[in-house]
């Protein structure tokens, strides 16, 4: 299953940087080496097995932009599933950005009316902490208004303050692209109940984006997923430096235990248990036994034949 994702925005707004961090395992510092994108860079990202994101990273210099709206219009805007438009929060030419954005929407409306639209207000780290929300809200309201009749979803993002913003926006985008996500979520919730877990998360293997989660006991930190993604990604990078593959980890103290384990061929699972009397081995056995069931869901998603043996759940 191929899904075309358009990544657009003004030159220098950070499209390629974001893409490299999320899908090519760059760390933020590495993106300084990136040059300007010429025309369109296509990349295929295998996500969750057979879901292929066909990313069109469209260079944002004016000459290219004009091109997209004229000669390449059909080619670029046809069969688009998702449009991600990146705005530089510090841009001085807001009117012009909006103009391009609206031309873009117009073309989308003509060629792929069913596409979902996301706006990322990028480089939020450049704005003082106390003003971020106000500025974002103002931009969001304006974008919503200007996007009509299409609906858009806005996120604040930054590659530097990545623990705060980066992953959540992309997790949300990717979440929408996964077929069968509700079945995945209900299975996950079931799994959490059986385990007596506080929380269970499912991460995509390559990007470590959260694709589904189930919370049994609310937690105060709403940014915890992004923080964990980031920590594990860093850890995976250090693992690969030693030519070892990240397999699993267990963190335990007197009030909780956290397990991150290899799950299906495309996912990692994370289980949080707050009952210290439950031994690790019991949880690990449960994780191992749940694998089959989740592998089956994954195969259903990808349309591959499913073996007839019943899952052990």
């Amino acid at each position, binding site marked *: 299953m191929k899904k075309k994702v358009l990544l657009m925005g003004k030159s220098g707004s950070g499209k390629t940087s974001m893409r490299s961090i999320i899908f090519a395992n760059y760390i933020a510092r590495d993106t300084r080496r990136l040059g300007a994108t010429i025309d369109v860079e296509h990349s295929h990202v295998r996500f969750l097995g057979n879901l292929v994101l066909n990313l069109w990273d469209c260079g944002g210099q004016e000459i290219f932009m004009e091109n997209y709206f004229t000669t390449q219009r059909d080619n670029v805007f046809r069969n688009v599933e998702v449009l991600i438009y990146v705005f530089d929060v510090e841009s001085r030419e807001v009117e012009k950005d909006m103009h391009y954005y609206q031309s873009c929407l117009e073309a989308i409306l003509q060629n792929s009316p069913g596409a979902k639209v996301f706006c990322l207000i990028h480089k939020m780290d450049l704005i003082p902490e106390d003003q971020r929300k106000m500025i974002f809200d103002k931009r969001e309201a304006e974008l919503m208004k200007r996007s009509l009749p299409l609906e858009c979803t806005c996120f604040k993002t930054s590659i530097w303050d990545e623990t705060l913003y980066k992953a959540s926006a992309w997790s949300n985008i990717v979440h929408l692209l996964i077929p069968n996500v509700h079945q995945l979520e209900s299975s996950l919730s079931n*799994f959490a109940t*059986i*385990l*007596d877990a506080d929380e269970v998360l499912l991460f995509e293997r390559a990007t470590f984006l959260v694709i589904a989660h189930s919370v049994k006991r609310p937690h105060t930190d709403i940014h915890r997923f992004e923080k964990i993604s980031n920590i594990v990604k860093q850890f995976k990078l250090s693992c690969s430096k030693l030519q070892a593959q990240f397999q699993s980890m267990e963190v335990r103290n007197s009030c909780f235990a956290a397990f991150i384990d290899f799950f299906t061929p495309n996912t990692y699972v994370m289980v949080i248990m707050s*009952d210290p*009397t*439950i*031994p*690790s*081995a*019991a*949880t690990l*056995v*449960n994780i*191992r*036994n*749940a694998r089959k069931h989740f592998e089956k869901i994954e195969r259903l998603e990808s349309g591959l034949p499913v073996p007839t043996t019943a899952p*052990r*759940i």
Partner: protein
Amino acid sequence: MLKPKELTKVLEQANTGGFQCTLLLNPEGSLMAFAGKCDKKENITAAVAANIWMSNAKSAKSAFQDEGLQYIVMDCEDGKVAIRRVANLLLCVYTAESVGLGMLRAKVEALARYLEEPLKQIASP
């Protein structure tokens, strides 16, 4: 799937009349579930029990030829211990010294029979 709290409740039922602690562990010595007063030494107990089992199982193999090791019952200074295989796990029970060996064996047998079928299902293929 294994419901850890339910399993603990089942094990807890054995802890009457001088039975102090009931543990379920895998052959590597990691604790799967436990019930009773273990003075926070349940992990160590599990490791020691698995170790005793493993070393005896090896010699049992050559001694009994066709049959593997079924039981280990130990009569110690401060109490009695029984270890028995259930599915691919080990059940370990220890009691006060006042408990008779017959009673110990009967109870372990009953518990093992009850757990055998459900635990077989969660065992790795």
